[in-house]
Each structure stands twice: as structure tokens, then as C-alpha cells.
């Protein structure tokens, strides 16, 4: 590839503008109507998942939820751009992408509910555990893709991160290793303008995050992250290149985190309301609905069907999260290593004794109360 071809465009690739109007592009093809309908359905589900999770946090059923409200086109685009045999390496903000890969919402929420550190079958869904330490998972994606390539498999790995993560050393090391070893990885950066409170201008002085790619010798491209058609097309091209032995690509999506970092954050301290409101007009659902309705593909019946599907997901989330799971405290010791060390066994025996005494005391108290003998 010529060096100039590695540079991103001056403007983000866009196939459907904020008004729902098609933008002609010589390189990137518009996905089929079937694909766009599937994507739209994903967006409806994703928005509902984000809103439902937010409500569950307010009700105290989730410990915390980093919302991808406003970034659903990136979430759904990432999940739909890869094939069933490919792998997704997500972060904590990518629950919608994880669910779009087929993970049950209840399993995707295990981390945030506080039952365990991850709750889904990584191998069954080909989704790595959601990573919390920034950019660390990008290296895992590279190593995973290296192993697949060595075995002659045509697996592609898509690795997600945000704009803040591009400042981390592991971002640099992952990009560099991926390019040097020419592995089939697509790095997909959701540039949502903020790392908690710190704006993009404090993360980089580069012309764009996608411009970083040429420094590693790989192509970079920027895409309108609120245009799922463009996201699918740009990621699709990168995935195809990776699968055919063309090596890694960096894709930067321009999007916006419509809500605070998490429920624990107060975004009025660092950004103006007008700025947030301006992004409402660029909403990923609205423009695709306008487009698909305009071409006659999205009927009122389909809209109702999609909305009902999203409601079923929300109901499943409420049901799962309003049910307290019976968590075995011995799990603390069960998985640390394949074989439990004598020290951990000793510690578990101590805890087991504490639990048994606590339960016995509780039972005695209950019995006492029911016989009316409490003083």
C-alpha cells in the first residue's frame, strides 16, 4: 500500500447525513436495505438497552452503567461488521455491542450488577471479557489474531477502544505489534469527544486519531460514527482487508457520549448543554429511520415489531436484574488458579466457618423472633 493511501480522508466518511439524505461515495458502498434494516433494529435494541440500564442504576439494581447512548451506530456497526467466526474485544462501554453479538443481556450485565467480573461464555460468543483497564485489551486482540494467523485460520479480530485510550502506551504497542506482525485486527476507536471530563483536545494534537495509523504503517480511516451505514461500510472494508491477509486497519468513528461517563459522573461541570443538544440533531437512529422510511423499507408494522422486540429485551433485563442471584462465596477461591493452593484452602475454611456461624446466628434470631421471645 502506498503511504498516501494510509492517510485518512480530510472529512469523515458519511453515507447518510444527519437529515437522512444519502451521500454519494466513490469508495464506500451503501450497505443493502436488508443490512440497514438489521442495523436499524439493532439501534432500536441498543437505545432501549442503554435507557433500561440507566433506569436500573437509578433503582439500585446495577452498581454502575457506562452508557453508549448516542454511540449505538458504532456498537451495532462493530457487531455486524464481523462474521460469526470472528472475535470482538470490547471495553466496559460496549455492552450493546456485546449483546448484539448474541450475549444474553442478563449475562452481559453480570459485571455491572456486581455478581462477578464477567458473566458470559467468552468462547461460545467469541467475545472477550469486557476490559476495564484502558487499551490493555488491544494487545490481547493482537495476540489472539497472531495465534489465529499462525494456524492458518481466517479469523478477524475487531478491537474497540475510546479516544482517551489512544493516549495509553498499550494503544501504541498494540498498533505497532499489529503492523509489524501484519495480523488481522481492526482497531475501532469510538471518539466520543470525552474521557470522563477531559476533551479530545487534551488527548492529542494529531490532525485526527486516524492519522496515527500511518505512523505504524497501516491504513487509517475516519467515519461518521452516528451513520451506521458508513460505519458498516468502512469497517467492512477493513475486515475484508484483514481477512485477505492485508493486515490491520485503524478506524476512528466521530461520535458523541450523550450522557455522563457513568451515573456517578456530573457532566454539567465540564461541558455546555448547548453542545450536548447540538448532537441530538445528529442522532444515529433518527437519520436511519428517515432514510429507511423515505425509501419505503421501514413500515409502521416493522417499526412496531422492532419496538416490541426491544421491549422484550428490556423486560428480560428488568427480570434478570430484579432477581437476586445466589452467589457462592467459595467462588472467591474457586477460579484463582486451576489448583487451589493450600493457603487459599485454609482461608476458605476460615471464611466457611464465619459463614456457618453467621447463618446459625441468623436462624436463631429468626426462630426467636417467630416465637415472640425477643427482648
Amino acid at each position: 500500500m502506498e503511504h498516501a493511501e494510509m492517510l485518512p480522508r480530510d472529512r469523515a466518511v458519511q453515507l447518510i447525513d444527519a437529515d437522512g439524505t444519502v451521500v454519494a461515495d466513490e469508495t464506500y458502498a451503501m450497505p443493502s436495505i436488508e443490512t440497514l434494516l438489521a442495523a436499524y433494529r439493532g439501534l432500536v435494541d441498543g437505545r432501549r438497552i442503554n435507557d433500561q440500564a440507566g433506569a436500573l442504576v437509578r433503582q439500585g439494581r446495577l452498581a454502575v452503567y457506562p452508557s453508549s447512548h448516542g454511540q449505538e451506530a458504532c456498537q451495532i456497526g462493530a457487531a455486524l461488521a464481523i462474521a460469526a467466526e470472528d472475535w470482538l474485544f470490547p471495553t466496559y462501554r460496549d455492552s450493546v455491542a456485546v449483546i448484539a453479538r448474541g450475549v444474553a443481556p442478563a449475562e452481559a450485565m453480570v459485571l455491572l450488577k456486581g455478581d462477578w467480573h464477567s458473566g458470559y461464555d467468552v468462547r461460545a460468543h467469541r467475545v472477550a471479557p469486557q476490559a476495564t483497564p484502558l487499551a490493555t485489551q488491544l494487545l490481547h486482540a493482537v495476540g489472539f489474531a497472531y495465534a489465529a494467523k499462525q494456524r492458518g485460520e481466517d479469523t478477524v479480530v475487531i478491537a474497540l477502544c475510546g479516544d482517551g485510550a489512544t493516549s495509553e502506551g498499550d494503544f501504541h504497542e498494540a498498533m505497532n505489534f499489529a503492523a509489524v506482525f501484519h495480523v488481522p485486527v481492526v482497531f475501532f476507536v469510538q471518539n466520543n469527544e470525552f474521557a470522563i471530563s477531559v476533551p479530545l483536545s487534551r488527548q492529542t494534537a494529531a490532525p485526527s486519531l486516524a492519522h496515527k495509523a500511518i505512523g505504524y504503517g497501516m491504513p487509517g480511516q475516519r467515519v461518521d460514527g452516528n451513520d451506521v451505514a458508513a460505519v458498516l461500510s468502512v469497517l467492512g472494508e477493513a475486515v475484508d482487508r484483514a481477512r485477505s491477509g492485508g493486515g490491520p486497519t485503524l478506524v476512528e468513528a466521530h461520535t458523541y457520549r450523550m450522557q455522563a461517563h457513568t451515573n456517578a459522573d456530573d457532566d454539567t461541570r465540564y461541558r455546555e448543554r448547548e453542545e450536548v443538544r447540538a448532537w441530538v440533531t445528529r442522532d444515529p437512529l433518527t437519520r436511519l429511520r428517515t432514510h429507511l422510511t423515505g425509501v419505503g423499507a421501514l413500515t409502521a408494522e416493522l417499526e412496531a415489531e422492532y419496538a416490541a422486540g426491544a421491549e422484550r429485551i428490556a423486560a428480560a433485563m428488568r427480570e434478570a436484574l430484579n432477581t437476586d442471584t445466589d452467589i457462592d462465596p467459595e467462588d472467591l477461591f474457586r477460579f484463582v488458579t486451576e489448583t487451589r493452593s493450600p493457603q487459599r484452602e485454609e482461608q476458605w475454611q476460615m471464611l466457611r466457618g464465619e459463614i456457618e456461624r453467621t447463618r446459625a446466628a441468623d436462624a436463631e434470631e429468626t426462630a426467636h423472633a417467630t416465637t415472640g421471645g425477643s427482648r
Partner: protein
Amino acid sequence: MTIAHEDVRVDERPSHVSTMSMAAALNLALADAIQADPDVVIFGEDVGALGGVFRITDGLTARFGEDRCFDTPLAESGIVGTAVGMAMNGMRPIVELQFDAFALPAFEQVVSHVAKLGNRTRGAVRMPLVIRIPFGGGIGGVEHHCDSSEAYYAHTPGLTVVSPSTPQDAYSLLRAAIASPDPVIFLEPKKLYWTKGEVDTSVTAEIGTARIARDGTDVTLLAYGAAVPLALEAAEVAASEGRSVQVVDVRSLSPFDDSTVTAAVRTTGRAVVIAEAPGYASVASEIQARVFERCFEYLEAPVRRVTGFDTPFAPPKLEHWYLPDVDRILDAIDSLHWEDES
């Protein structure tokens, strides 16, 4: 100090016996592991054509090809982070981090992922990888080349931490580390790389076990890595002065062999822990605490420690003052409330 008392020969592995350096024993273990398991891959900085700065991977790329042993970009977090991904996808990576202090850029990957992924995924994703780190001083190295970082790793649940002190253990423990389903931090005492001993390739060493390096009845010296030959030397001098000194090579820093160590100290009633890392909040202090907790009624004297000072590692010209030596160990033994003293 050649073949361990409790270690056994196994029929599965062919027995080749020869005398070699610890470096050669490690090289042999890597070569044998490559041949025994197609999933084993070795990578790191300078491990290819050069054979590593200590020549531990000497000839492996030439013999087995770039697919099995290869150089990476100079980036330790990258090395360990990609090893995590490779282990997730069926490989058994063995990575070399060139010097103890240069392992630190990988610390986040080690602590947040290598150590925790098995737990995070409820055992579904194991991390069968080995991180080899040359460690410790005694070689006249300049700053950043002589650190003892074992406490950082031993403090982290999920990591296995071992260190050999003989060529036999170098071979057997490295094979055990490579075969382990869990991640192993394999600390190679640089000072001992060129010491020679007999190696029998059929001998296995079980992770989590200590090794009685010398029998004795009056006092137990507990040591690991480069401190073990030092302890044996001190034991020899003490023997000439009429004291029978037992030496235990604890070799598995995590998990720790409480049962062997406890039984040993209960027999002698006196103990000195020897390690060259700074003593504060160290593996030596953990061993000391464990011995106190388990042997208190059997002790004739407080358990003593001989460790490095709580200073950054000494520059080469002050190294001999910094490192534990035979005299310091003998002084510690002398302070253990002997009845023959008045």
C-alpha cells in the same frame, strides 16, 4: 546440591544426564518444551538471532524457526499483552523480559490480566504462559539491572512465582512452569547462570514445593535464588565451627510450601531467612511471619532475616556491602540464643 531429595524421576521423560550450566539447563528445557508441545512459542527482545542477552535462547530460532522463537518490538507491555491474547487462543507463550527492572512496563498486563483472567472468566480462560525474568544482583550490573522484584509478583493472587538455584531445578522447574495451566513468573538468578551442576532431564520438580538442600539439626536457613548457594556456603563454615545447619531452598515463592518449611523449622527450633531483596514488606518478611505463626512453640529464638537494605540496589562498587554474605548469615546464626553461650 544436585538432585533434590523429594523430586522424582518420571518414565514419561527420557533420562539424559549431563553436567551443564544453569543457562544451558534453561536452554535445554526450552528446546525440549518446543519439541514436546507444538503450542509452545518463545518471544521477547533479542531472543532470536542473538539468543538473548544471557544466551538462554541460544540457537532456538536457528533450530526451530521463527514460528517458535522470535524477536518482538522493544515493548514489554506489548510482549506480555500479546502473550495474553495468544494464550486465550490456544498457544503456550514463554516470554523473556530482559532484566528485572525492564519488566516493569508490563506490570499492568501482569497484574490486571495475566493474574486475573482465569478468575474473571470463572476458569473458562486459563493463562498457561511463562514470564521469564533474569533477577537479582551479584554481577556488577549498573542501575536497573540488578533488582529483586519478586515481592510485587508474589503479592499478586493468581500468579505462580518460582526461582531455581541449581541447574537441575532450572530445567525441572521451567518444564513444570511451561506445563502449568496457570501463569508463572520464572525468576532466573543472573548470578547463577554460569554455575554448573548435573541435570537429569527425567527429574521433575513440583511447583509449590520447597527442597531440602542440606540436612542439619541446629538451625534452618531458608533461602531462594542466589541466596541458596550462599546459605550452603555459610552452612559449611558453621559446620566447621560445630553447628549443624539445615538449608531449605524454598524455590516456590507462591504458592509457598508451608508444610516442608514448618516441619524443617520445628525440627531445628531456629531459623534465618535469606534473600537479597530489600527486607521491608518482602518475601523474606512473609516467610518470617509464616514461620513465627506456625512454629512459635518450637522456636528457641526469634526468626531472623538477612536481606538487602531498604535502599535502591547498590552501584557495582558498593554491591559487596549491599548483598547478604556468608559473614552476615553467620552473624545472624550466632544471634539465635544458643544455650552454649553465657
